[in-house]
């Protein structure tokens, strides 16, 4: 019995790993093909707006192995990828792996801080306002609407103007300790708090109207305990489903936030790579984002089971 279960679990894990790999391969191939059919050829990009002579072009083609057939270049790319070699950046004169390695930590730091800020704010506001008076709900939901609709760029500028340029509480730039992380994390976390707050409050209010809530109240549970122990769990399911969306928001928002606050990070690398058509870097970033998504969706599947016992059976 336990043997069969273990086998099933293995099968599940193996299947999940297999799908994950397939998604990664598809992401690598799709980005490769997209950049291949995009206008302009690689030699032009490498020449940039610099001098352009047949000799220089020949030297570039030789240096980057661009004279090989496209399918050979593609297979060589996949082969290198399998060995963990992401290639060399066209513009940055360095290995892509090295570029990403130096830039990944600040981005992880920023996105985690922003996610924590967003989730904390959303939970606090939802708990404080769910099922409460109209005025409190109105204020909270207006604030959420503003946080969602104002572009993060503007939020960032306003935060800077007030808390850095005028009040001088936080430095504008760099990754110098935790104080420099506060404003970027807020700028990136506020839109998430906005959406998540709405969803959580809606979920809480629906849960509090369910029959089990009435039963719990009848058992003598205080409203606070009811919300914390029972209703929040119900409300979390739709919120967790949104996590995929907010991973995207975080990664996308990081591009703007990092440039605005002069922070190092992947977002800035990605933006510069896309405008400069630095293919190896773009592909590596796409691959990395795919990896993050695959990992996260696997973890979320597991999280559902933990939150909602009904799924376990």
């Amino acid at each position: 019995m336990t043997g069969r279960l273990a086998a099933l679990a293995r099968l599940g894990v193996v299947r999940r790993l297999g799908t994950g790999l397939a998604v990664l391969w598809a992401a690598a191939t799709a980005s490769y093909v997209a950049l291949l059919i995009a206008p302009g050829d690689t030699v032009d990009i490498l020449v940039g707006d610099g001098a352009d002579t047949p000799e220089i072009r020949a030297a570039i083609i030789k240096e980057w192995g661009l004279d090989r057939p496209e399918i050979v270049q593609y297979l060589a790319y996949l082969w290198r990828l399998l060995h963990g070699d992401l290639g060399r950046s066209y513009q940055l004169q360095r290995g892509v792996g090295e570029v990403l390695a130096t830039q990944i930590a600040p981005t992880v730091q920023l996105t985690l801080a922003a996610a924590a800020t967003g989730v904390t704010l959303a939970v606090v506001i939802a708990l404080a306002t769910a099922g409460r008076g109209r005025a409190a709900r109105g204020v909270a939901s207006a604030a959420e609407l503003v946080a969602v609709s104002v572009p993060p760029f503007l939020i960032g500028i306003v935060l800077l103007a007030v808390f850095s340029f005028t009040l001088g509480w936080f430095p504008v730039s760099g990754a110098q300790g935790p104080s420099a992380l506060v404003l970027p994390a807020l700028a990136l976390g506020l839109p998430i708090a906005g959406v998540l707050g709405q969803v959580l409050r809606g979920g809480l209010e629906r849960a509090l109207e369910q029959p089990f809530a009435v039963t719990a109240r009848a058992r003598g549970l205080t409203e606070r305990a009811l919300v914390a122990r029972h209703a929040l769990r119900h409300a979390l399911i739709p919120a967790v489903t949104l996590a995929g969306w907010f991973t995207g928001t975080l990664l996308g928002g990081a591009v703007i936030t990092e440039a605005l606050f002069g922070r190092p990070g992947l977002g800035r690398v990605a933006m510069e790579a896309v405008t400069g058509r630095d293919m190896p870097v773009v592909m590596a970033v796409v691959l990395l984002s795919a990896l993050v998504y695959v990992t996260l969706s696997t973890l979320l599947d597991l999280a559902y089971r933990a939150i909602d016992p009904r799924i376990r059976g």
Partner: protein
Amino acid sequence: MKRLIPVLLLALAACGAQPAAQQAAPVGLTWAVETQPITLNPQQWSQNKARLLVFNQFDALLTRNKDGSFGPWLAKAWKVSDDELTYTLTLRDDVTFHDGTRFDAASVKANLDQFFVEGYNAAVAGIQLRAFKEAKVLSPTTLEITLKEPDALFLDFLASPYAGQISPKSLKSAKDLKFGGTDLAGTGPFILDRYVPGQELHYRRNPAYKWPPAGAAHQGPAHLAEITYRFLPEAAVRVGALTSGQVQVIEGVPATEAGLIKNDPGLTLQTALNSGTSFSYYFNTSRAPFDDQRVREAFRAAVDVDAVLKAVYQGTATRAWSIVGKASPFYDASLENTFGGDAARANKLLDEAGWKQRDAQGYRVKGGKRLSVRTIASAAFIRDRRDILAQAIQAQVKQNAGIDFQVKIVDQGTAQKALDDNDYEVFENSRGDSDAGAALNLLLPGKGALNRTHFSDPDVEKWIAEASRTSDQARRKELYAKVQQVVVRDKAIVFPLYVPADQIAAQKSVQGLGFHPASGTPASAYDVRIGT
């Protein structure tokens, strides 16, 4: 969650309690710059915006003055043979690299030969060094360079970032030579000791430094013990960081922010015109409608350039009158007030050229075809609000002459494809070469690498070729004046708009800031000091 909230609040409080704006020690400062360099190796340099960093860490062999003449730097003296094929450099004998290696003729030769290592820098080997034959070490302080043919721009090369001298030891052993960084040893007044990609560069003073270029304001080591360059691409953020005292110097002040800084008694603002070519629209003369000179002249006449510049740049832009920028010694001032701002003439010319009818939207039409022209610009190279400038011009040519000017801002690949397919009418460009002749070599000859006008003229080519061979600056000025008159006045293949400039804003206490005389870009930090 209950535990997390107090922690977060505590963290917030702790952060607020720290003094946020770093108090600058009197011997160091922080300078916010717009552009993060893509390479820190001077021999791979390609961004004019990153030029201010190069000569902190590295020194060139010569220095170039505002009038186009040259002065000594790591080379004390230089001699050019009568046939202009042999350059003999006499080098300083008291210079050492940051890694302790001695600077001598052999190291200069190693730096020159490095350009011909495959995959190092094909562009410089093919353009700036195309005439280079060989370098011979005659003595530790004497180097003889032979050229295959005379090249007026060779001295300019010796004064350019490409001639930044790298320790031969670094050339052999640097981990990432083409990228540069802290393990690349130069001879400059500062030593790069920290590079945080996406954030900042940190330099400390080179205490042994005593070989500044001719024209430097002081001798001996730099005044500042250390300097940090922080990358802040957003102009409003740079200005805010300056006004709130978080940085002491910034470069790149847009017109919209210049007033704010001028009105602040605690701040200073300096501007200098860049060398090289003006920001200009180049007409594609190989396609209709700009194959007709009357249409080219009409386009220029239809734009009231002064009004447009005033609206877009709030009076901070300098109008250009020639393809060569006003800061260049080769600028031909006789072209001033020869074009633009004459709507009546524009309409007359277009009528004569056969664009007589108008369609429902008011655009001119000939043979059922609308008078449409396109500029295709790569978003990566848009700066100085050039997209807004294009829109202002679009409005003017429509209103004043019924020309449909389409502004297409696209990715670099699409822009390149349009150029390759000859599918554009206007090519917009400015170049920051310290010798404008280098830019003209690329832009004007029929086979020039950046000839996007498809215009070629035997006289122009002859003059440019002669100006490239002779190092007689007066003769070059004469020849380039003739070139400018043909392309700007006689043939109207180019529409000069404004002269690009650089700005530095700083706290009043910062002294010695300035611009590199030949390029007009901010100078290195060598002469900068904190005064009272």
